[in-house]
């Protein structure tokens, strides 16, 4: 058909650009894909932590997981440890995966666990999470797909070096015919009648024409904002952090199979262990703390020697009002920013790409598709936003100006509805498209100190003896499973250790 898209142009490299290039090269064959990037413009790539759906993205690309881990200096991740969030000295874990097992009653396990809690049971729900048990013991392994009725599979994601990830995807894409063009875009040519972008003009005088454009140019939104003025919805009153200072440190002897997020005086600090080094950073609100104070605080708490000076990044929480305008979509920072507290940056890029593949347009880009895409992406961003805000709002901390602000700020209605429901019945009833399910919400809200009053009444239908037996059986199976796993570092060494030559940070 004449109206098919033939030429796709990606403006901007970095993680978002190369993820898009790889996904399109594999899943939209027959199209010419050009990626424009400039060595002059730095990419925002620090230690990157991900969530389990990235496995689907790897599958979409047909990537061999061991190779991928090797080439990106990655480690495995079973969840996030939150330190000092509820109050100083308190710790909790946001586990990936399920809790307990499916009891085949139509009622999630969580409610049975709540019932046992309410009758005086152990307050640690994560005794029923294989991922947590393994993380606590520094273990990792892939488990065989469990037969129905047995325990759920173990869920994991990766912690990797974002710059090597982009480089890895670049090699992947170029092997599949993606053309990389070095240089800076200086002008954009639009069709006078339709406003569609026809070509981008380069500093060297050449131009690159295309039927469809993907804006991966970062915060400035070279196409989506500078050409189309899509607008920016500012969320910084809910998420006041606007800077991050990042610094790599020497590798941990035993890299933990989880990311650490430690709450600090005016923000929080990450620790992302990779094979060759450890990524660290302090995300903060510049109106509550100075860059210098942050640098001192960050360097003072590194667990290994710093390998560079802290580098400061600036951002603003919010979302581009439209991620798709005419024949252009924005991916990554050009479509919005949410702090990496729940490791969602790469996921939002992934969601944008897979949705685009689902909605793959003709050249004229049907407005119905565009509206639907924008609606669904807006929902994605908002649901992640609410989840992140909950970490700040639900806390006992009032020890600094920053935490007093967070604890008393107003929150979106969509979040307060979830909190009300959670308090009543231990579940927030996520919408079908919500990224985080009830188990994640439970981990966070309960971890932050909100203990629900009730649970699903159907969970009372089981006899006490039966419930106790089942809980004990599940706990035993989890212990046995985790016992059999190797240490995380041992697992990496055996099947996916990086080549020592690729350790340039």
């Amino acid at each position, binding site marked *: *058909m004449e*109206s*098919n*898209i033939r030429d796709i142009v990606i403006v901007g490299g970095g993680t978002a650009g190369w993820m898009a290039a790889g996904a399109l090269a594999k899943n*939209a*064959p*027959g199209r010419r894909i050009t990626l424009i990037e400039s060595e002059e413009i730095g990419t925002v790539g620090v230690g990157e932590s991900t969530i389990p759906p990235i496995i689907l993205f790897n599958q979409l690309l047909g990537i061999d997981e061991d190779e991928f881990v090797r080439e990106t200096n990655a480690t495995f991740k079973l969840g996030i440890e939150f330190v000092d969030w509820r109050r100083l000295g308190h710790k909790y874990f946001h586990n990936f995966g399920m809790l307990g097992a499916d009891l085949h009653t*139509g009622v999630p396990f969580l409610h049975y666990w709540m019932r046992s809690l*309410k009758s005086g049971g152990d307050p640690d729900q994560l005794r029923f999470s294989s991922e947590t048990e393994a993380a606590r013991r520094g273990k990792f392994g892939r488990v065989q797909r469990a037969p129905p009725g047995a325990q759920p599979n173990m869920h994991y994601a990766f912690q990797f070096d974002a710059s090597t990830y982009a480089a890895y995807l670049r090699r992947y894409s170029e092997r599949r015919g993606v053309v990389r063009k070095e240089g800076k875009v200086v002008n954009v040519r639009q069709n006078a009648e339709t406003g569609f972008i026809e070509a981008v003009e380069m500093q060297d005088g050449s131009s690159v024409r295309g039927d469809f454009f993907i804006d991966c140019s970062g915060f400035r939104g070279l196409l989506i904002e500078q050409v189309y003025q899509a607008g920016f919805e500012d969320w910084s009153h809910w998420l006041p952090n606007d800077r991050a200072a990042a610094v790599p440190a020497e590798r941990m002897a035993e890299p933990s199979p989880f990311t650490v997020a430690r709450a600090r005086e005016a923000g929080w600090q990450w620790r992302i262990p990779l094979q060759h080094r450890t990524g660290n950073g302090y995300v903060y609100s510049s109106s509550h703390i100075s860059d210098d104070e942050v640098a001192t605080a960050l360097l003072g708490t590194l667990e290994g020697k710093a390998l560079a000076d802290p580098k400061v990044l600036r951002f603003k929480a919010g979302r581009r009002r439209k991620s798709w305008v005419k024949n252009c979509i924005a991916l990554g920072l050009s479509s919005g920013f949410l702090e990496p507290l729940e490791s969602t940056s790469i996921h939002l890029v992934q969601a944008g790409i897979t949705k685009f593949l689902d909605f*793959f*347009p*003709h050249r004229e880009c*049907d407005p*119905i*598709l565009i*509206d*639907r895409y924008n609606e669904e992406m807006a929902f994605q961003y908002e649901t992640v936003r609410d989840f992140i805000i909950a970490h700040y709002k639900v806390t006992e901390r009032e020890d600094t100006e920053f935490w007093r602000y967070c604890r008393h700020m107003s929150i979106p209605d969509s979040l307060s*509805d979830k909190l*009300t*429901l959670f308090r*009543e*019945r*231990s579940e927030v*009833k996520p*919408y*079908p*498209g919500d990224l985080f399910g009830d188990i994640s919400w439970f981990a966070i809200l309960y971890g932050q100190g909100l203990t629900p*009053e*009730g*649970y*699903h*009444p*159907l*969970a*009372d*239908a*089981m006899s006490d003896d039966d419930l106790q037996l089942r809980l004990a059986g599940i706990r035993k199976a989890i212990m046995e499973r985790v016992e059999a796993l190797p240490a995380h570092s041992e697992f990496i060494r055996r099947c996916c250790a990086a080549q020592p030559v690729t350790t340039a940070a």
Partner: protein
Amino acid sequence: MTRRVEAVAVVGRDAPLWLAAAAIQRSLGPAGVRVQAVELPSWLASADCYSTLPSLASMHRLLGVDEAKMLRAASGVPVAAQRFSNWAKGAPPYLIAYDDQAGEAGDLPFVQYWLKGHREGLRAGIEDFSLGCVCARAGRVPLGPADTEAKISASYGYNLDARDYAEALKQLVTNRGIEILSGRIADVKLDGERVIGIELEGGERVEADLFVDASGAERVLMMRLPGAEFHSWRDRFSCDRVLTASATQFKSLPAFTQISAFRGGWIGIHPLQDRTAITAVYSSDGISDQTMIAQLSVLARLPVSGEAVVSELKPGLLDRAWIGNCVAIGEAAVAMEPLAAIPLHLAQGCISHLVTLFPATAEEMPEAMPYNDVIRAFASNIADFTQAHYLLNGRFDEPFWEQSREAPATGTLRGKIDLFSARGEVSLRDNETFSEQNWTLLFLGGGIEPDGFDPRIDLLADQPLIELVQQRLRAVAELAKNMPSVDQFVGALGQLQAVGVS
């Protein structure tokens, strides 16, 4: 800990009352919840029929109902599809069946392959690729799962005698030990937005922590609550009358319900074991009840006998189907004409959302909020599906049908139609009752000819596409050939296990 819900009173009539009481007792009885049913006088006429979607069978499984016994008791007949005739001048009838798979073949919905094939000269229609449609034409029942290899299977709904079915459900509820009080309501005691108790004309009092309103269009509890607001859809749906009557049974039972449009509305012909139920749904603006009754035999092309009863129809929904401690289910929450065989499904959907959101405590009940959201979406999708039949009608020069074409529709429905017209794609929303395949059959049957298809279909070369399409065509025909006829199915109800229904 705060107090749990210990007592539930379900107030209503007919099948929705009994379904709700049985379902709540079945799931929450073991958790210590006591259920009472308050039975209001029935509104069912002797000729009434419940035409249902396949989802009813899963409700029955949940309730532990013996399917064969139920079908025998309610003169039930399986329905593989609905057949729509005369919805456009000169157009052939079309079918909407209930295939379990969305017709997937490869990565894209099957209709995409069909559209491409059709453009290249493929002659087989979309219905030839639907096991349900092929069975419906051949008078067969698609028992599933038919072929796990090809992943082709279809489900079927039922036509049931309404009074017999309600009676059988009442029997079930009685056997389960649920207390039943019968009568009319004399008084409802309120405290703000909460119902404290009700008093029947006979003097009995009923108190409960949670009240369920299953009283149909009367909304006997809901409409007494401050803040209850019924939002009418009359601007979207012209029909405000339902006439039911009977004719003699078919000698050989068809596997579909016939839905024939006529100048003032539509007529449904529902085969039952011992008679044929006839429904006429029409607008009183265009045709009087007397005229309708007089013309029914001619329009239905069947000799109508016995009682013909007209009832009023007021489509719309409650803005809040759950207020305080009172939850509306079925028609009490959302009223919709029975075009898409949904009246019991509406009750069932509400009941299952209520069980999922059963209040954790007897006090605040913030569950009302998600319940109201989900019911609104659920109802709106069904209303869209129903209205799509009208919007797409091709009957010109008839005021009723002109008006139906011009009636206001939601942006969601317009968007669905536009997208399908552009590329044969159905954009499903959350909480859809009808599948991608149902919408596809409706849109194509209603006469939409998509301008294009998903661009990814071009990635498949012609040869594999032709093979894929032909393979499916053969597989469907082969499977359908081995399905029992409706007569065989009904005849075997005494020993239903033998024909493979569990």
